[in-house]
Each structure stands twice: as C-alpha cells, then as structure tokens.
C-alpha cells in the first residue's frame, strides 16, 4: 500500500510539471511571461516552504535570500561583465553562505523572536541595498547589459530575450527544485524536519541535534530562495531593491499558506492562485487588493491548511 501511494504521488508531481511544459502551446502569449514569473516565484516559495512547512519555522525575512541571489548574480554581470551561468552558480553559493550565517544567529531564538530576528535581518539587507545605491542602483535598480542576454552553454547558444527560452529555463529550474525537495521530504532528512516541527524537545531527547537539523534546513531553504532570486534577475535582466522589501517575504508566506504548507506542490499552486487572483481582480476593479483579501479570508476559513493541505487531510492522505 505504501509503495502504491508513493508511486501515485510521484506520478502526480511529474504530471503537474508535464502540464506546465505543455501550457505555452495552449495559452495565449500574454500568459507566457506571467507564468514564467510565477514559476520563479513558486521556486522561491518552494524554498520558503522547506523551512516553514516542514520544519515549522516562520521566517519573515526570506526576501533577503531572494535579493541575495538576485544581487549576487546581477552585480557581477553588471559591474564585472561575468557570464550568466557563472553568475548564477556564484549566487547559489553566496545564498547558501548567507543562509548559514544568518541561520547560525537567528536559530538561537524561537517562535516570535525568530520571526522578529529574521525580519530585522531582512530590513537591514533591504536598507543596505538602498544605502549602497551607487553599486546596487537602489530603488531604480539596474538593467543588465546586452551581453547578459545570451550565453553559450555546452556549445548551445541560449537567447534570454526569447520568451520560449525563458519559459523553459524557469520550468527547468522549478522542476529541478520541486524534485529535489520531493526527494528530501520523503527521505530521512524530511523525517527529521517533521520531527522537529511536531515536537522539538522529544526529538532532541531521542538523540537528534535539533539545532543542526534546523540549520541545514535553513541553508537548503535559503539556497533555493536565493537561486530563485538569481534566476529572476538574470531572466528578466533587472535587479532592484523592491525585491528585498518585506512584501516579498510576505508573498512567500502567503503563497505557501494558500497552497498548503508542508506539501511539495502547495507553494506552486499557491503562487498561481495568488497571481491570477490579483490579475483577475485588477482587470475589473481598482480595489483589487480588497477583493483578493476577501478571497484569502474565505480560503483560510474553509481551507485552513491551504488548498492542498486540506485536500490531503480530507481525502488524499498519500500526498507528501
């Protein structure tokens, strides 16, 4: 029975990703760009969900990791003329280091204190991007130069001005992240995460170093979020301090809550719902944030565990 449900859930995840790969053939052009953005933000939320959904740590500062990747990739490209792939790898490494450093400090706190400490760090990062505006471009940001719009990898020329190329690059990154998270969640590592979330003191008393478990999760979470940031900057050739603002930290939390914290597909679904809700209402009314708010309240009332979390509890127990 366990075998069966394992296969079923893997099939579902691959099915969702396959569906995403077919969408460009079905949907009009307008949606291509939107979905490309959503997929990168979904990757961000996926990283956020590792920490929030599986380990149970609510961070209010994940925008700093997103922005860290964004700048670590964008700045060398802009100022030093780095190639895109190298800049991306650099951003991944820097994000991991930043997450380890901030985790080592912030994880000494718990609960509300953890939320505040992460928020604080994130505000520092945001203000730093404004303060050093001669390097970062501050509020106005920087548009990446022409040379960063195309690069060669394995003898293949990749043209980032093409919507198709951007779409499938984003999908590739999202799929890779989703499958990695899926694998980890279903391994001993995922078991440790959930054990810390469900009962940290018991877990420590069984012989687990819970601090180390949380730190590892923080690094994984920050690295995924940072990679999403790097991808965002490089795909759309723009880096700016808005991405470091609190709004992006809240977005990651909202996407995750909406889709279902502690499910692999939840953040992806949540990103899509949220994005299209705003899109839909902003086409009809200027009070689109109000309308979106009402929908969110209804969702929380009827789907308190998020869409997928509630589905899992009621019917689909096998969902990871």
């Amino acid at each position, binding site marked *: 029975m366990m075998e069966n449900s394992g296969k079923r859930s893997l099939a579902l995840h691959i099915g969702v990703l396959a569906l995403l790969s077919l969408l460009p053939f079905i949907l009009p052009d307008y949606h291509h760009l939107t979905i490309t953005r959503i997929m990168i933000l979904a990757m961000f939320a996926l990283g956020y969900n590792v920490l929030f959904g599986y380990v149970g740590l609510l961070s209010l500062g994940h925008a700093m990791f997103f922005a860290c990747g964004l700048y670590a990739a964008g700045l060398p490209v802009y100022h030093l003329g780095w190639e895109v792939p190298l800049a991306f790898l650099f951003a991944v490494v820097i994000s991991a280091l930043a997450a380890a450093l901030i985790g080592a400090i912030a994880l000494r706190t718990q609960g509300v204190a953890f939320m505040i400490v992460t928020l604080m760090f994130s505000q520092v990062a945001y203000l730093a991007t404004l303060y050093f505006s001669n390097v970062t471009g501050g509020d106005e940001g920087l548009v990446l130069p022409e040379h960063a719009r195309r690069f060669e990898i394995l003898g293949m020329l990749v043209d980032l001005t093409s919507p198709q190329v951007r779409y499938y690059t984003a999908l590739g990154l999202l799929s890779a992240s989703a499958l990695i998270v899926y694998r980890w969640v279903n391994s*001993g590592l995922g*078991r*440790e995460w*959930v*054990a810390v979330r*469900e*009962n940290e*003191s*018991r*877990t*420590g*008393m*069984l*012989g*687990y*170093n*819970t601090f180390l478990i949380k730190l590892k999760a923080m690094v994984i979470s920050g690295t995924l979020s940072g990679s999403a940031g790097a991808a965002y900057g490089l795909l759309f050739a723009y880096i700016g301090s808005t991405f470091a603002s609190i709004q992006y930290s809240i977005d990651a939390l909202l996407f995750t809550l909406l889709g279902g914290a502690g499910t692999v597909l939840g953040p992806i679904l949540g990103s899509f719902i949220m994005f299209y809700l705003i899109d839909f209402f902003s086409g009809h009314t200027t009070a689109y944030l109000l309308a979106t708010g009402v929908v969110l309240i209804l969702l929380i009332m009827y789907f308190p565990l998020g869409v997928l979390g509630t589905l899992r509890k009621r019917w689909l127990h096998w969902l990871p």
Partner: protein
Amino acid sequence: MVALVAVSLLSTRKLNRRFGGIVAVKDVDFSLEQGEIRGIIGPNGAGKTTFVNLLSGCFASDSGQIVFQGVDITGQPAWKRARLGIAYTFQITSIYPGLTVFENVAIGAQVRIRQSSKSKASPDEKPGLEEIVDNCLRLTGLDRSRTRLAAELAYGHQRLLEIAVNLAVDPVLLILDEPTQGLSVDEIEEFTGLLKCIRSNRTLILIDHNLPFVMNLADRVTVMDQGGILAENDPKGIQRDVRVKTAYLGE
C-alpha cells in the same frame, strides 16, 4: 589482589540543582548497576523528576558530576546523552500527535540506524527501519494501530507509543517517569509484562507513585525526600525501613 567491583553503569557525585531559592536536588550520590531495574520513590516534591532530568540532560546541574559508562557526561546536551544510550519518557506523554504510529516509531528507529551505520557490523546484520519499527510495535502491542494518527490513540496506548519510540532507539538505560500514571489496573498489568520483557538487555529507572508496581519490578529501590536520598535497599528492606515509613508511607 584486585577487588571485584560491581560494574557501575551510571553514577553521580554531589549532584545539585536549585530553582531560585528551592533546592530541588541536593548533594545526591547515586550509583546504578548494569542490568538492574531501579525504582525511585518519594513524596511529591522530593526531587525525583528533577533528578532524572539531570541524568537525561533536560536540565543542567548546578554542580556535581555524572558519569555514564565511564564517560563524564555532566556538561553534555540531552541529544548527546541520548546518543550514548540514555532514553527518557516524559511524565506528561510526549509523542508526535500529528504523525502516524509508524512514523512516530520510525523517528526513533532512524537514530539507531544512524548510530549503527557508524559501527563496523556487516550490513546484513543490521535491521532495516521497517523491521525495527515492526518489532517495537509488536512488543508494545501497537501493531494494529500502525497507520493511525498518534493523537487518535487512547491515552494508555499513547503512553505505550512513547515507550515504543524510545525502544526503537535501542537505549542502554531507559528512564520511565510515572509510566503508570492514568493507566487502568489491567493496563498496568500488561505494562508490567512489557517491562519484564524488555529488561533482558537494558537497565531501567522507574519513578512511580504506584508502590506495588515498583516493588514488584524493582531490584533495588531508592527513596528520595527533600532533594536527597533517604534510603536505598531491596524492595523488602525498603518496606521495613522505619525512616521511609515516616517520610513517605505514612506514620
């Protein structure tokens, strides 16, 4: 001639812990032999739970020394002590209510697998995760509840589950804090059977208010009062001890 000394599994020397102005544990010298079942009894507030919490690492001691299997563990955090083989079941049941019974025990089993992967035994001899979990569930009679959520179990079964989770770790020393609290007479009887069954390769410390239960199982009984050790003897000796009678069993 070398004197033959009984192998001491765990010993404490002048162990102290205060909470504000209250001295919860005071200059306790305690010694536990490999393989024994030790009962710890005493009136409420005698310092029993604080004392075993110092052993398990839940609380740090203010002064004194704890030696386990020849290693000074006084300054070590709880998770390190657990890896050395000290397991502790809480007075208030502490399990993973949101997870299935299987997953609960699997979390314990995973520690053991990690530990054994460091040892040199051949892979064939090492039990797999499912095998460990199934054994522990069978032992505690929870095998029928394998896929149920821990929160849905009856109270007595939750207590058994906590034991199963700890057994999965395969501890050297298992400390049980008030294991029979809230159990029915039948359940206590089953529980006694379980402990007799698991004692073969383990050392147990048993704190309980249920005296017949303790006297029935324990090889030796330590009586605590006002943070110190009042008496220590075999169950019969304890029941005859006048000091114990006045302090605890009633005048």
